[in-house]
């Protein structure tokens, strides 16, 4: 009985506490990312953004949350009800579960597994299902077309994301996210040979999270609302929050792979705790997400596919060879 207590129950308790902590931080971040987006877009377009609910409109996310909860959930006739509801739940679940392997600081990670990078890649590649199932289960033409479009887009950009990650892995020599960050002690990867890959990774992240300028899945002008046309109220909110949680996740991945994770920019600033640097770097990436949205027009679908398959993919493949060659010549093999 004592054995059960020490080997299972106590770790389980700490793990649940850790999960609770991460959920609180990520959900809080997600809620305020929606606020930040409206404020930043407001500033870019010379508007004020939300400024009525609470000081500086800070309570706006709460008000939106309440509103969405009290709205009526409409399920289309002839929709596949189980899958229709399961799809947004799955988006949200996947967006949150990837956080299990993200290191917030040295040693501050829920599950420090050896193949952390693969875990994140697997989770993000499963996100396609939620969208394609949502499109199909809605029993609506717009939703189906939006879902197919979105799935094609995500699958295409996953390929180049995979290859870009391979270049980082070659450089770091590990698939463990904490070790990848530690490997950047002598210089972040963005300031090295991997700079073009950092740019490509970020652009692919935009496509992977269906964000502008690659937000074709919800191209209003041709597809009404894309795969989530038929969704309303809370189940729509799950898609919406899932998208924002994915943005934060992709920013965290960019930070870990290229911006040195929790490492301070100068060692003189080492007294600031690591998770603060991590949060600041994520915030920087997120700002770029919003900035891009406020600046660039949407790509056409054929342009999107062309840039993914004919530019990103060959370039990242070439870079795998380049990085491997440099590493070999430097005697690192």
């Amino acid at each position: 009985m004592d054995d059960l207590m020490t080997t299972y129950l106590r770790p389980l308790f700490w793990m649940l506490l850790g999960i609770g902590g991460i959920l609180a931080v990520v959900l809080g971040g997600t809620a305020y990312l929606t606020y930040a987006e409206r404020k930043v877009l407001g500033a870019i377009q010379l508007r004020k953004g939300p400024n009525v609910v609470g000081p500086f409109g800070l309570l706006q996310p709460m008000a939106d949350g309440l509103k969405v909860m009290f709205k009526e959930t409409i399920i289309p006739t002839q929709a596949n009800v189980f899958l229709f509801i399961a799809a947004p739940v799955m988006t949200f679940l996947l967006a949150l579960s990837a956080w299990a392997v993200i290191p917030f600081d040295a040693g501050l990670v829920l599950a420090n597994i050896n193949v952390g990078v693969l875990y994140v890649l697997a989770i993000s590649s499963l996100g396609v299902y939620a969208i394609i199932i949502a499109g199909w289960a809605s029993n609506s033409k717009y939703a189906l077309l939006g879902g197919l479009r979105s799935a094609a887009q995500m699958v295409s950009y996953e390929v180049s994301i995979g290859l870009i990650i391979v270049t980082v892995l070659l450089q770091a020599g590990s698939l463990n996210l904490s070790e990848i960050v530690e490997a950047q002690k002598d210089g972040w990867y963005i300031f090295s040979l991997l700079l073009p890959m950092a740019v490509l990774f970020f652009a692919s992240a935009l496509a992977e999270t269906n964000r502008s300028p690659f937000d074709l899945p919800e191209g209003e002008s041709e597809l009404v609302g894309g795969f989530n046309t038929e969704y309303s109220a809370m189940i729509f909110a799950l898609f919406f929050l899932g998208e924002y949680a994915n943005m934060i996740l992709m920013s965290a991945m960019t930070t870990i792979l290229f911006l040195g994770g929790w490492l301070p920019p100068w060692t003189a600033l080492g007294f600031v705790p690591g998770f603060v640097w991590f949060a600041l770097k994520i915030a920087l990436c997120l700002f770029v997400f919003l900035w891009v949205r406020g600046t660039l027009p949407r790509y056409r679908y054929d342009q999107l596919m062309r840039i993914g398959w004919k530019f990103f993919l060959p370039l990242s493949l070439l870079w795998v060879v380049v990085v491997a060659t440099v590493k070999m010549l430097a005697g690192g093999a």
Partner: protein
Amino acid sequence: MIIGALFYLFALVLIASAVAVVSVRQPVNAVLFLILCFFNAAGLFVLLGAEFLAFILLIVYGGAVAVLFLFVVMMLDVKGDVPRLPLKRFLPLSLGVGAVLLVQVVIMAAFWPEAHAVTSVAADSENTKALGRVLYTDFIYPFQVSGLVLLTAMIGAIVLTQREPRGTKRQNVQAQLDRRAEDVVTLRHVESGKGAL
């Protein structure tokens, strides 16, 4: 104890969903059960300590192959009642295939202690490294050859199915980018009341 319970959980769900793949009527549901199969197989790999294989299974089969299945199946406009195939016609064939597989499992079980000894050697070190070392040293030729076979198959499939439909208008992106405003637009000052020309 908990590991054992997890094994039976994954194994039972795996078998149940595999049965569902071949028995549900709605093709989309069948593909979704197939994905559930992949998940549980990945769980079994993790229990064996082969986490690399587990996640590769999820990424390749779960993230890419099954998505394509789903793509195709969604395009079939089937609503519920698929005509049942005559069971009698396919029964001998399926029993034959099943018997072959059963024999293979029995043979495998006979050599289990030896096979198991091999896997536990690999599991000592980090299994990504172990796998990489084995694939790129001892099995480098089979590995590269299988890669080339897959590449050939892919190119073959594209060549066989690609047909250039007549009358398609293709855009030449470079030509579009090379177009300059001064080549195609002229600005003229027109005095009011006189009209252009």
